[in-house]
Every structure is written in structure tokens, then in C-alpha cells.
């Protein structure tokens, strides 16, 4: 029972973000703005007082229906550095009663008068559902919904690329691994195309990289050597071991042999290629230890960049909500 398009729901009347649900439909200016603001927040990490008053007095609720320590912690850190008060709620939910229990949960939370919900859920569309049904002036940030979208992860990946390579034009970017089940990959493909890279390549076994992904503006490769040739950025995705039972792959070692990023397969890419991974990494499954810890790897930078990007997204969304509220109130008074 979804009435509005996620992309339209995200923007206020002045075209500013007031929720952050998906990168699909956001233009280059909006994405670049997030990266620019994240850059400013990055330099804050060097100071001894790592706090600015932008979200002072605001209550931010981490609504995690799916477990995640890393993402939840970085969102919490981001909100606290903006001086917000943070509440963490880990809610177990059963898939069968999803719609109803989500509404109930939401209504109960509304009594707490929060200003922002950061939502992670196993069902695609969950963050959008919450954005549609929560009280006005509350910002909703998608921390990952089912297989649909993980916009903040994609944005921190974009920031990492920009900081390493300087610009997006002319870059060949390869995403390797379990594309089919990856919400991160979908968001990354949108971002890379919107920001104007030369080529987006998806590499993996046929069972995990269906050809319909070409419609999203990507080239599909089933052989690692071909796919990595002349590539500037390599993003390795986590192979979710639980998928092994579905006979989508023969075995972990088979995957590593064909698609694992080792020093020898890395040599097929450009000499100054960078290696990324959203984490947590499975050493010896997607990537070798030498590469993960080597000089091409920017995996740890991604983590630092994640806090800055989330600070940017939280302040932009809160600002969009506040300006919307101001405009409505002024309009009502004239």
C-alpha cells in the first residue's frame, strides 16, 4: 500500500533531501553536495573536541530490525558528533507479520517524540514504508533494506573513490562477487553512474550476476581476468556463506579460485588501482590477506569515511525537514 515514489518522498519542495532512502532518482548535484559536506566533517576527526552543535537537542533513534554492530555503531558515532541524543533499539521481527508489526512499532516510538529514525530491515521497502507513515518533520534514514538499497554505504564508497582518485570521470570501476543479493551493489551502481564514471563492471559467477543488471547501466563479466583489465577501482563484495546451501556456488574455495582477489589477480587491473570492501571481509574467500592489508587497500579509510558521510547525511536530512517545517509554518501564518 505504497502511495508515493521513494524518490519523490525523499525531497522537500525546495528539492532538498528530507529523508535518505535510496540513491535512485537523486541527481549529481545532491550526491556531490553530500560528498563535499562529508569532506568538511572528515577534518573534524583530527580535533580533540570531535563535536559540533548541529543536531543539539535532537533525538535520533537507531531502529535496527536486522543485526549490525558496525553500521549501527558508525551511525551512533555520527549522530553523537553532531551533538544529538541517540537511542538504540534492536527489534526482532517475524517476516510474516511485517506490515502490521512495523506500524505498531512506529506508533509506539512516536510517543517518544524522536526527530530521526535510522532504519535497517530485512525487507525491501521498509525504510520507505516508515517514511510514508511516520509523523511529519521526522527524518528517516535507510541503513539497509532487504536487497534493495544501502545508500550511506554507497556514498562512503564514493567518497573513498573521490579522495583516492580525485574525480569520477574516466574511471573504470569493478564490483566483484554476490551482486544478486547485494543492496550495497545496487546503490553503488546508481551512484557511480550518476557521478559519471566511465564504466561500471559487475564480475562474478552467472548464478550471482544475472544479466538483467545490464539494464542498470553496467557491463557484466563472468571471468575475473577479463573484468579486471584496466580497472581503476575494485570493490569486493562479501560472499554471504549462508548462500552456499542454495547450490548457487560449488564451494568457498572454488569461488576464491575463480573470483578471489589475490596479488596475482590484482595485477590484471591498473598498477595504481585501489581495493575496497564494505566489510566484514572473509579472508581467503573474497580476498587474500596480502591484498586486504596491502598498499592498494583503502578498506580502513572506508570506515573513517563512513562516519563523515553519515554525519553529512544526518545533518542534510535534518536541515531539509526543518526547512520544510519552517516553510509550512510561515505559509500557514500568512
Amino acid at each position, binding site marked *: 500500500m505504497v502511495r508515493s515514489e521513494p524518490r519523490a518522498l525523499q525531497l522537500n519542495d525546495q528539492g532538498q533531501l528530507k529523508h535518505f532512502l535510496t540513491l535512485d532518482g537523486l541527481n549529481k548535484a545532491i550526491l556531490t553536495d553530500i560528498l*563535499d559536506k562529508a569532506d568538511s566533517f572528515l*577534518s573534524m576527526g583530527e580535533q580533540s573536541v570531535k563535536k559540533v*552543535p548541529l543536531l543539539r537537542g535532537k533525538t535520533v533513534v537507531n531502529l535496527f530490525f536486522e543485526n549490525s554492530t558496525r553500521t549501527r555503531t558508525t551511525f551512533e558515532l555520527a549522530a553523537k558528533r553532531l551533538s544529538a541524543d541517540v537511542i538504540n533499539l534492536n527489534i526482532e521481527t517475524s517476516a510474516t507479520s511485517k506490515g502490521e508489526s512495523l506500524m505498531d512499532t512506529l506508533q509506539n516510538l512516536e510517543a517518544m517524540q524522536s526527530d530521526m529514525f535510522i532504519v535497517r530491515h530485512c525487507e525491501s521497502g521498509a525504510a520507505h514504508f516508515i517514511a510514508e507513515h511516520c509523523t511529519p518533520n521526522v527524518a528517516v534514514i535507510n541503513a539497509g533494506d532487504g536487497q534493495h538499497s544501502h545508500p550511506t554505504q554507497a556514498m562512503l564508497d564514493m567518497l573513498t573513490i573521490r579522495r583516492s582518485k580525485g574525480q569520477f570521470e574516466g574511471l573504470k570501476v569493478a564490483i566483484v562477487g554476490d551482486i544478486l543479493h547485494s543492496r550495497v551493489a545496487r546503490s553503488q551502481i546508481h551512484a557511480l553512474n550518476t557521478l559519471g564514471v566511465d564504466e561500471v563492471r559487475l564480475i562474478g559467477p552467472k548464478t550471482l550476476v544475472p544479466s538483467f543488471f545490464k539494464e542498470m547501466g553496467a557491463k557484466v563479466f563472468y571471468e575475473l581476468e577479463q573484468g579486471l583489465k584496466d580497472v581503476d577501482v575494485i570493490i569486493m563484495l562479501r560472499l554471504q556463506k549462508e548462500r552456499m546451501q542454495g547450490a548457487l556456488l560449488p564451494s568457498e574455495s572454488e569461488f576464491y579460485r575463480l573470483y578471489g582477489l589475490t596479488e596475482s589477480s590484482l595485477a590484471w587491473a591498473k598498477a595504481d588501482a585501489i581495493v575496497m570492501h564494505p566489510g566484514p571481509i572473509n579472508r581467503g574467500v573474497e580476498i587474500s590477506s596480502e591484498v586486504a592489508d596491502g598498499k592498494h587497500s583503502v578498506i580502513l579509510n572506508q570506515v573513517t569515511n563512513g562516519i563523515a558521510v553519515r554525519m553529512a547525511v544526518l545533518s542534510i536530512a535534518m536541515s531539509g525537514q526543518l526547512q520544510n517545517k519552517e516553510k509550512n509554518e510561515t505559509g500557514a501564518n500568512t
Partner: protein
Amino acid sequence: MNLDLERTLEKMSQELVAYCAHKNIENPIVVGIHSGGVWVAERLLASVNTSEPLATLDISFYRDDFTRAGLHPKVKQTLLPSTENRHIILVDDVLMSGRTIRAAMNEIFDFGRPSSISLAILYDLDKSELPIKADIVGEVIHLDSKQKIKLSGPEPLAVSLIQT
């Protein structure tokens, strides 16, 4: 209205030197507020007796108008050493409501407890909305509602009066 920029800066430099001597201010940190304040501070730094390099402040995250104006698009770098027990000379190009200076002081205090903060302003528009006054003033300028003053720089540094 005197808009002879070079003469005003010269006058401010001399007054600043005398002020520091009078107040026994040693080795201060000169802090310019982006962007105009930084350009003015660069000029004043030359005459101040200090070994400290120029510090810069961007107050975007400390503004009081987040609700109505949102987050400022381009945030520049704040480069400030520890302010603990230091004398600060805060510099800006224009003083109007005083809110920028309020934000700057809040930010300075996040870097430590300064011994003192003195304020040097190139153009005081005499329109304060807060109890904030400059210690060194280049010129007091009274504008009518249709006029604006604008500093451009850093090279060449120039001031212009704009009719809106």
C-alpha cells in the same frame, strides 16, 4: 564614508600593536573568520609580534540559523591549535548582528579555555543584535537599507559598496 582600504588596514595594524602592548598580550594566536576575515587577518598578522602562524575558522557548524537557512553549502577548513591559556585576536571583515562572532567564540572554546579573546573588525556597521563590540575598529560605516558592503580578495584585496 572612508573606503580607502589600505589606509584603514594601516591604521588597524598600528592600533593593534598598541593594544597588545597595553594589554600585555604576548604571542597571541591571530584567528581569521572565513573568508573575508582571513584576508584581513593575513594583513594584520605581519605587524603583530607572534611566532604563531595564521589560524582560520569556519563557523558554519556553529551558526544559530540552522533551522531557517539549513547547512551552508561550502564549509571551509578550521585550522586552530589548542586555545588553552592563549590570547586570541579574532578578526573579521564586517561586524553586523554579532552572531558570527558569537558562533566563533563558541567554536574557539571547543578548542580549550583561552586567556582572552580580542576582536578586530575592518568595518563595523553599527547594527548589533547582541552585546558584542570590537576592540579594534577600522571604520564605522552606516549603510541605508539598499546598500551592502563587499570585500573581495585575496589578491587584489578590495572593498566595494553595492546598491541593491
